[in-house]
């Protein structure tokens, strides 16, 4: 003999359960449109893509925090900038050769 208490009078019949299931799903599916698979994938992987992008951006940015180990190149860059600034101020176009000399 089982110790179970017979609660079967409280349970809906199988037919009733089928009716309720149909009613629930009809109501549910009417409230939320089907998600397009592509959108679902975007939703699912979107967060991961953002995290990976942030990490890559961080990796690219971190080296800029340290002073450059190539002072010569930096100096060349500043010379080029200086030449261009003079050009802008004076309105005189420097000789092409000069500019190339400066930037070389």
């Amino acid at each position: 003999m089982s110790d179970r208490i017979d609660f079967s009078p409280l349970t809906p019949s199988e037919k009733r359960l089928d009716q309720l299931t149909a009613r629930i799903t009809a109501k549910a599916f009417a409230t939320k449109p089907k998600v397009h698979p592509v959108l679902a994938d975007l939703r699912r992987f979107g967060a991961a893509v953002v995290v990976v992008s942030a990490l890559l951006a961080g990796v690219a940015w971190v080296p800029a925090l340290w002073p450059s180990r190539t002072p010569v190149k930096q100096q060349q860059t500043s010379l080029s900038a200086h030449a261009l600034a003079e050009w802008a101020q004076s309105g005189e176009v420097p000789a092409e050769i000069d500019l190339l000399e400066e930037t070389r």
Partner: protein
Amino acid sequence: MVDEDDSALVARARLGDESAFTTLVRRHLRAAIAVGIAVLHNPTEAEDLAQEAFVIAWQSLDTSREPGRFAGWVLSIVRNRGLNRLQAQRVRAERDVVEEEPMTYGDAERVALKQELLAALQHLTQVQREVVLLHDLESWSHAEISAALNMSEVSSRQHLFQARRVLRGLMAEVPNE
């Protein structure tokens, strides 16, 4: 054919697979109604509550962090919504539930027993009601109950023992399987 587990069904339902969600509903509807009865003491209201809970579950499937615990999640929705209803003492007058099953002559005894069971259940705590209904009505194991209701298996067994003792004391004749 092997039944798909809940996680796989939830994954498919999230992608918009309506048949997967229908399977989930059919699989857990009885348990949801059982918990609804435990909270509201009214099978008709419990059906309504279960419907509401599944619709909410569908709408927020994406927020379900543990798809494998779908049953526990839905039961918690049933419980919380049911308690809200009780607290607000607001029983919906108009329900869009289909009519109750028509009673036939052979149902008279069953209806009387139903009323007796419902009256006896009111003497239990809510947790005892949930445990005894899930175990004896839905044939859930203590492991399943403990997972769904967030309690230890020992607690589940204790609640079941206490519930059965109270119910047997209250009911003059309790039919067994």
